[in-house]
């Protein structure tokens, strides 16, 4: 006896088998070890994709305006870090809390471990030194930052590194502006950049007294 390979057929027994509809629960994956974890967080500056390693270090804080952007960013994480990526999990609770505090003006430094695995070595060097080079409440031009980093001729490359910041907000690339002070492009849009700079200027007496710690 033969039957087509791709249809279950209309035989009542076959239909009954194919129609099996038990009561099912989605799997509980919170406790599974070894995976990267992500959440999509809606904030005052936009939707952010937070991704962390199992043991805590933050891999992404990327602007993801729509689902397509989420998928694209997760594909990149899967390709460049690990495909074992799961949604949710308590490892991101702390950074979510710190982000909320920062955006409410109650926090000037992020006390989170970061992992710049998504950046090139040069980007890592620039982004790793950025929080100390341009502290809370201050801004710098690309040229100033390049000089600060000891690469006075590399302002264009420094700009490129900032454009590829996988840890927006947490690593404050929004503090870098054009030489005339104009806001230049920003992954989250110029409104987001303005909001962040206004937020940091709102408390001038405390501004700049504490550089975000990025280890």
């Amino acid at each position: 006896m033969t039957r087509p390979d791709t249809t279950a057929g209309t035989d009542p027994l076959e239909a009954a088998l194919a129609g099996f509809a038990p009561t099912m629960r989605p799997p509980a994956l919170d406790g599974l070890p070894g995976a990267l974890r992500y959440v999509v967080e809606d904030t005052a500056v936009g939707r952010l994709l937070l991704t962390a390693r199992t043991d805590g270090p933050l891999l992404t804080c990327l602007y993801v305006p729509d689902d397509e952007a989420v998928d694209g960013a997760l594909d990149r994480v899967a390709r460049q870090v690990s495909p074992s990526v799961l949604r949710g999990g308590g490892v991101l609770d702390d950074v979510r809390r710190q982000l909320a505090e920062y955006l409410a003006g109650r926090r000037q430094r992020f006390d989170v471990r970061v992992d710049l695995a998504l950046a090139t070595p040069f980007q890592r060097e620039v982004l790793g030194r950025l929080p100390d080079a341009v502290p809370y409440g201050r801004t710098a031009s690309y040229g100033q930052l390049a000089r600060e980093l000891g690469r006075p001729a590399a302002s264009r490359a420094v700009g490129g590194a900032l454009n590829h910041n996988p840890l927006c907000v947490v690593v404050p690339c929004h503090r870098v502006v054009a030489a005339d002070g104009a806001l230049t492009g920003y992954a989250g849009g110029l409104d987001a950049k303005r909001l962040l700079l206004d937020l940091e200027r709102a408390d001038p007496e405390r501004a700049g007294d504490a550089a975000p710690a990025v280890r």
Partner: protein
Amino acid sequence: MSLPPFQRLVDAHWRDVARLAHALAGSVDGDDVAQQAWAQALAAYPRLRDGQNLRGWLLTVTARCATDVYRARTRRPVPVPDVGEAAAGARAAPSAPAADALADLPDARLWDAVRALPERQRTAVALRYLADLDHAELARHLGTTPAATRRLVSDALTTLRARIGHPTSEEAS
């Protein structure tokens, strides 16, 4: 070759995995089997060589977990629901036409009968009708030929029909 983020597999296929787990392991163990399957799949995922047919791979992992649980269960001296009860239930309404009998048959009884099939027939039936794998895929997963999987499925259906689909002439008389 690059693998998609694992969560995308979960979102796309958790229902298929759960359905297969429930069918092969029963409602009591179904969720546990699905959970085990996800844990095993996640652990093996980064080392996976082939990103093709990830759904088939997940369902194969699930079927294997279900088989392990089933073997563990049947080794215990606790009676499992057996085909005799299912057949007795079917005999209660000997005049019902086969199609009606099947339509009224609770899932539990049908799948109890499936679970009483020999292991390879059981897995073949579940992967064929729940996972909708074709015989080429089935053969790959069971390590045999499409001709052999056709025979497995066909034998399984014959057995199921004899046991629950409709009363045999012997039982009806």
